[in-house]
């Protein structure tokens, strides 16, 4: 997992509430056998409309999604997070996320930031008026900054530490590699092994 300290980028204003995971990545994409390549499925239904905000030329290369309330409800598919990341988003801002989606996103290194709805509105106005306006999501300072906006946000200390150090569950376990090796060294010889028997 990549370390997340601070990120600055242009934004996509998504003025919709209750965006569920099926809208983020439709079910037929779940047949894929990889964790990458989901970018074309992101908001697939809406992207058929050329005026949809993600399709606008001025939004190309944007990396911060400013979404409406209740983002990520519905089925628990982790693919929704992968789709946002594959597309190039580093952070999502909303006044409320669905719990499972939020858990999945933070586990995968996609920073989900909760800000009051009025701050979200101000960010919308800002980036709609000026598509080149940048938003900074500073995890070290737990702060979101943009022109005329400085807003602090909360994040669990442990989760923040993991993101700052780029530690996923596996890396955390591997920090105890010596314990695993020590355990393995004491395993009795009668324990089963799958290697083909001669």
């Amino acid at each position, binding site marked *: 997992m990549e370390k997340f300290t601070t990120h600055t980028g242009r934004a996509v204003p998504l003025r919709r509430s209750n965006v569920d995971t099926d809208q983020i990545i439709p079910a037929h994409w779940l047949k894929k056998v990889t964790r990458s390549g989901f970018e074309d499925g992101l908001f697939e239904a809406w992207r058929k409309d050329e005026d949809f905000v993600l399709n606008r030329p001025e939004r190309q290369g944007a990396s911060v999604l400013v979404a409406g309330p209740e983002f990520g409800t519905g089925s628990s598919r982790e693919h929704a997070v992968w789709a946002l990341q594959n597309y190039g988003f580093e952070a999502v801002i909303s006044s409320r996320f669905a719990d499972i989606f939020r858990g999945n996103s933070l586990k995968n290194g996609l920073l989900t930031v909760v800000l009051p709805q009025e701050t979200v509105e101000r960010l919308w106005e800002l980036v709609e008026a000026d598509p080149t306006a940048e938003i900074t999501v500073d995890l070290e300072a737990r702060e979101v900054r943009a022109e005329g906006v400085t807003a602090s946000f909360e994040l669990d200390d442990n989760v923040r530490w993991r993101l700052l150090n780029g530690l996923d569950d596996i890396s955390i376990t591997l920090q105890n590699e010596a314990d*695993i090796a020590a355990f393995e060294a004491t395993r009795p010889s*009668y324990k089963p092994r799958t290697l083909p028997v001669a």
Partner: protein
Amino acid sequence: MGRTLAEKVWDDHVVRRAEGEPDLLFIDLHLLHEVTSPQAFDGLRLAGRKVRRTDLTIATEDHNTPTLDIDKPIADPVSRVQLETLRRNAAEFGVRIHSLGDVEQGVVHVVGPQLGLTQPGTTVVCGDSHTSTHGAFGALAFGIGTSQVEHVLATQTLPLAPFKTMAITVEGELPEGVTAKDLILAIIAKIGTGGGQGYVLEYRGSAIRSLSMEARMTICNMSIEAGARAGMIAPDDTTFDYLKGRPHAPEGEDWDAAVAYWRTLATDEDAVFDAEVFIDANSLTPFVTWGTNPGQGAPLGANVPNPEDFEDPQERTAAENALKYMGLEAGTPLREVSVDAVFVGSCTNGRIEDLRAAADILDGRQIADGVRMLVVPGSVRVALQAVEEGLDKVFTAAGAEWRHAGCSMCLGMNPDQLAPGERCASTSNRNFEGRQGKGGRTHLVSPQVAAATAVLGHLASPADLSDRVAVEA
């Protein structure tokens, strides 16, 4: 204070214990199949990681494999991609795999035990909820999600939250014609599909001790349908006899050391369970489900229940919805419910004893007109054994279809599916809406009831056949 079987196995696998953190547990055996492993391997690839212990990992193909024409390319593109991906991943990461056409191929929960890989006192995981099957050997075995699959591949460990223990004590003797499947369906009907939540169940008592290993696997297999984390049975001489001489069972001094260890695993007399349930084996009869979850079952001699008789409003609504989906009228005797299809197979009842039991009833009889019966061995080894005993001939002579090994009609992932509205007596483990095909209706039954049902065309037990003269073959 004494410890339970589950606690002993857990304690023996703790790699790391720290205040306020889940225990990190070592995993002895990691089973893989094509459905839940692709993204886990891809995750490893993206992070540049390897499989830590290929010698504790094994893959088989089962969910998507066809049971006919297995030498032809797989028609369904999604199935084909999943199988090809597993093959590629196994080759790239050096994992042992048993592909379609291989003599060790089969349903992952049939293959592990038959190879002797599932052993007492081990921890076994698989990205599949019916991993609980392996608990029949006194292993702590449970299903995990895809990100946990990746975690085990990379580290051979899992951080796990503690569980509670529940004793399910079954005393007495199962009456003639009553099987392990009837027992577990009765247990689930008693404690409910959420009754085991957060618990590891330990099945104990004289009725459990007298069961064969295959019957014990049937019981532990369905622990998950009671919502449990796992199900276990203390290892005893029945377990050791089953294991002895299997390809991966220990040999010589290792065998003696292993048995000595295995004998220490049974729950201590002064151990305390967090919950206890008692069942009288003598009172049981063949059991079938009438609804759309495994807890909605009743004795075969009963009638389809009336939703109004349920006190709990949620259960009442669930029963109403189930009857609607199942196309059943309250008050109809279950024996009068006629079926279109019969399925014998799955990791619950696709082992050799199950096939023998079904064949025994079909021998010299014909399945009813208009009923389609599929017999699908749980593994290629089971199939070969059945052929050696001539069971395949019994099935085909009776009018049933004898198929290649796999999950088949247990879940509609391969071409073996029910048509909308079709009704099936099935030896599998889940009667959820659409599980065997969109709109399909499933009644969970034992292999014996499945066979008798095929002959009579309606839900029936072998006892119902006794007044019929067997047709001479």
